[in-house]
């Protein structure tokens, strides 16, 4: 099937799946669009026996656009600069606490459930977006491919089930909501927070960036300790 070789194939099914998932989400609010859209793409690829490696080449345009989309998060952050200034203490302390919790809890849970050493090292940077996770993983001797996967799955868990969890704990304040989502689930959490409100989205974007920076810095002593 020659049409499977055309990059338009991968782009069409991805954007098509996204549009369908958005529509489904309006009828079935519990079905998060990231789950339904990815499932649709996986099903179409499986039915047509199209290799995932080819698909990933097709959609390089979309993965490249994640760069400018991340830069674009500067706009909501800039618009909320006044509120950010007022909450600077809460932002820095909560993000620092969240970053430490992310590394320590992931490492401890894998350790007590007797996961392999490779998994333990690769899971440590799971709270940050995968480009930062890759670098940290290489630094401590983890497997970068595993770290990318862990960071994506973390994003999905936080982005999909995070809001219900936070609401159950009574965190309706958009500032705390956004900080928690961005620090726990990086870009996925930020995408979800932006749907909640622009304020939540901008604090999530800020927490995502800061968690990336703080986590990278926290790994310098870990790296030295590992020798």
């Amino acid at each position: 099937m020659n049409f499977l070789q055309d990059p338009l194939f991968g782009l069409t099914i991805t954007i098509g799946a996204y549009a369908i998932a958005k529509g489904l989400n309006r009828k079935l609010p519990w079905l998060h669009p990231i789950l339904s859209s990815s499932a649709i793409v996986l099903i179409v690829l499986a039915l047509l026996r199209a290799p995932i490696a080819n698909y990933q080449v097709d959609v390089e345009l979309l993965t490249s656009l994640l760069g400018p989309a991340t830069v674009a998060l500067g706009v909501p952050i800039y618009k909320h600069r006044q509120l950010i200034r007022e909450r600077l203490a809460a932002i820095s302390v909560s993000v620092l606490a969240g970053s430490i919790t992310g590394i320590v809890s992931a490492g401890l849970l894998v350790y007590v459930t007797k996961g392999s050493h490779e998994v333990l090292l690769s899971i440590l940077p799971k709270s940050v977006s995968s480009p930062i996770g890759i670098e940290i993983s290489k630094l401590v001797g983890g497997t970068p491919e595993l770290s990318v996967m862990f960071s994506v799955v973390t994003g999905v868990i936080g982005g999909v089930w995070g809001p219900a969890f936070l609401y159950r704990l009574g965190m309706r304040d958009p500032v705390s909501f956004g900080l928690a989502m961005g620090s726990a689930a990086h870009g996925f959490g930020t995408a979800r927070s932006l749907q909640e409100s622009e304020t939540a989205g901008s604090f999530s974007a800020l927490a995502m960036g800061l968690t990336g920076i703080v986590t990278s810095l926290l790994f310098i002593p870990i790296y030295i300790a590992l020798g």
Partner: protein
Amino acid sequence: MRGFAILLGFSFIGVVIHDTLHVPLPGNVIGLLLFLGCLFAKIIKLEWVEESANLLTRHLLLFFIPYVVGAAALVPLLGNDWVSIAVGLIGSTFAVLWVTGKVALKMQPKEKEGSQ
């Protein structure tokens, strides 16, 4: 298209800085920091970029689909470690949500609560 060009430019400059100066942050985060710097310095006007930025951030999830598809393809290869991975990822994600959210809520200025 001016907005798109600016956002693409910052993203690209971020990648160039990451590659040449070996800054331990990904290119897109470096680009975001530089872009924020230029907004604050008023080198870039908000109205030049607002429309393009809104379009991209509104559909942020779209750009993650390829990553989720790639991650799903790796799941069958995890073998015996999958329980440990699931416990680690789920437990830790909720732990971070709880800690960050609680700390942020505790440190919220009291007089501001009514205005939210």
